[in-house]
């Protein structure tokens, strides 16, 4: 009603409508199956207490900040560090070997 006067919005709505109509027979049955398990899952969630959701939110934010700050994921894999040390090679050289030849750990050993 508010947007009906704008032509390009009408065209966009028609295109989206066509796509959705085409996908409906394929996607809707899957959607129905999804609904079944979701209805079961929704019974588990408390419906009258937002405090629990807030506590989970704060926990996730705090844990995310701490875990991802301590382990940013830019350290070399432990098995490779051991391998470098055993072989007496320095990081970059072994990295090149790994990248260029894709030789597995077992083969190098």
């Amino acid at each position, binding site marked *: 009603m508010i947007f009906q006067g704008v032509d390009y919005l009408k065209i966009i709505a028609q295109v989206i409508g066509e796509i959705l109509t085409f996908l409906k027979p394929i996607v809707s*049955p899957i*959607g129905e199956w999804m*609904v079944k398990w979701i209805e079961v899952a929704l019974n588990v969630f408390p419906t009258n207490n937002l405090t629990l959701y807030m506590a989970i939110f704060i926990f996730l934010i705090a844990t995310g900040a701490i875990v991802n700050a301590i382990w940013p994921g830019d350290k070399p894999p432990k098995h490779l560090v051991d391998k470098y040390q055993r072989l007496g090679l320095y990081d970059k050289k072994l*990295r090149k070997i790994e990248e260029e030849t894709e030789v597995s750990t077992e083969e190098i050993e």
Partner: protein
Amino acid sequence: MAITIIVPYLTFTWIKQLSVMGFYIVLEQQAYERIIFWIAAFGLLISGCAFFNYSAPKQSIRRGIFALLQILLNSLYIWSYKFSGATEIVFSIIVGPSSGSIAINLQNMVMLYMGIYFLTIILKGYDLIDFTVNRDKIRLKRYSKKLDKEEKEK
């Protein structure tokens, strides 16, 4: 957080009492409260998972787990609109002394969305398996990038 909580909250608050061409359309108070509860509850969970997901290293297992969790919660969030009555919104129309009601049924559209979410769940599941199986290769690649960056900085 803006998309999952603030925008829906403002939208439902806006349409709670809407005037179209002189007609007053009123969203029933009970339905409004239920919708706002579910928006806030799942919005908080989704925002928490999204924060964990996007702050985790790329292609890490923890990122895969939280991305999958986020999409599962998104499914619950979308369906909770139906559960709360939002897929069948009943508006009361008040014109002077007489009144009536309009019901908008969005269930089919939500069902379609659920199908799309299912495909996304499959994709996220595949990503998680991929990150787990190729963990060493991914870590090595990530470490190489770090070394390259350090090299350039020198």
